[in-house]
Each structure stands twice: as C-alpha cells, then as structure tokens.
C-alpha cells in the first residue's frame, strides 16, 4: 500500500523569502507525484506533477518541486513567497505498476505567509 507523509502541519514564512513544503512517500515501483493547493471553501487546485524525466518540475504560480528517488521525497518550493500563497497544500502519490488510478494524499500542510 502507498502512503504520503507531510511532516509539518504548518509552515510560516515571511513574504519574499523562499518556501519549502516537505513531502515523503512510500509506493511500490515508480510513482506519479502531485501537489495540490486548497483555498478556504474551494476545491483542490492542481499545481504540478512528476511523471518521469527531469527531477525538477515547474508548475503553476511559480511553484516547483524536486523529485528525489533515493530519499523518496517530493518537496514543494518557491523562490519568493507571496501573502496570496497562504493556503493548505497537499502532496499525493499514485503507483504506476498496479493499474490503480486513485490518489493517496498526505494530511496537508498549512502555509502561512506573513507580510
């Protein structure tokens, strides 16, 4: 069975500073990895995905994530945080070797960007 760990319930950063939201995963075979963002009273919005290829993936709103196979991690990063980035972020994984399409999500990390 696959699992996702987001070790930080909350991350606080000052506007303009770089941000990192951590994610580690456990899955058989090679994974598909995703980051989603959830704003209050709104659905999940897709940010980026890793399927194969370059370990550094660029996504929406200036976010990027680095796939590290040896550390089974897929941390979300942004060089310069904005107050508007404050939201709940979810990492998700999907196996590629079982035919299952369901995403397994982490418990989420709340990002708070202070002005």
């Amino acid at each position: 069975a696959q699992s996702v760990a987001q070790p930080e319930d909350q991350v606080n950063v000052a506007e303009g500073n770089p941000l990192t939201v951590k994610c580690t995963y456990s899955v058989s075979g090679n994974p598909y990895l995703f980051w989603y963002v959830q704003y209050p009273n709104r659905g999940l919005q897709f940010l980026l995905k890793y399927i194969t290829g370059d370990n550094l993936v660029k996504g929406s709103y200036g976010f990027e994530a680095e796939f590290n196979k040896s550390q089974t991690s897929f941390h979300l990063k942004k060089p310069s945080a904005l107050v508007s980035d404050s939201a709940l972020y979810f990492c998700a994984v999907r196996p590629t070797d079982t035919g299952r399409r369901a995403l397994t999500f982490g418990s989420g990390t709340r990002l708070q960007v202070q002005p």
Partner: protein
Amino acid sequence: GAGVSQTPSNKVTEKGKYVELRCDPISGHTALYWYRQSLGQGPEFLIYFQGTGAADDSGLPNDRFFAVRPEGSVSTLKIQRTERGDSAVYLCASSLEGAGEQFFGPGTRLTVL
C-alpha cells in the same frame, strides 16, 4: 471552460436518512473519481469510474455507499442509512483519461445530525 461541478454545495440530513450527491465532470473527461475529506485530513479515495463502469470501488467504506455513472458523464454518490460519521466533504474529480491529473470540484459538505 467549465470545471467540475457538484450539487448540492451543502447537505444537512438526519441520521438514518438517504442522500444523493451529484457530480458533473469536465466535458470529455472519461475518468471520474469520488473522494471524502474529513476535517483536518487529506482526501480519501472512494471510487473510480472509467466510462460507465466502476473500475475501482475499493475505497467505499461499506455497503451503505454506492455510486453510479449510467451514461459515462454525470455521477451520483448514494449513501443509505446515513450515520454521524459520514459527515465530511465529498469531493469529485475528473481526468481526461485514467493516467492524467485529476481536476477537483468544490465539494459537497454533508452534515449528518
């Protein structure tokens, strides 16, 4: 274009009642998913449709939960004999095909009193 829509946005019901939650996926998306999100948790998978058929229903918690997608577009999640523990936000997602990224609707907040 229109995203995934879900109705109702909120549903309050009494313990033991039957409820139906509707999902209208993005036009042309063949894959449709239902997830459940409890407070403070990430979404948990319930069921996945490819076309009209349920390709994976391993996440349905028990036989009170059932979902259909008769024409390969709109889907309805049905919950019988609701319990207070069923209270959650029910999310629907769709994708172009089974391997693509999933696009989520705004969810239906179900409250069972």
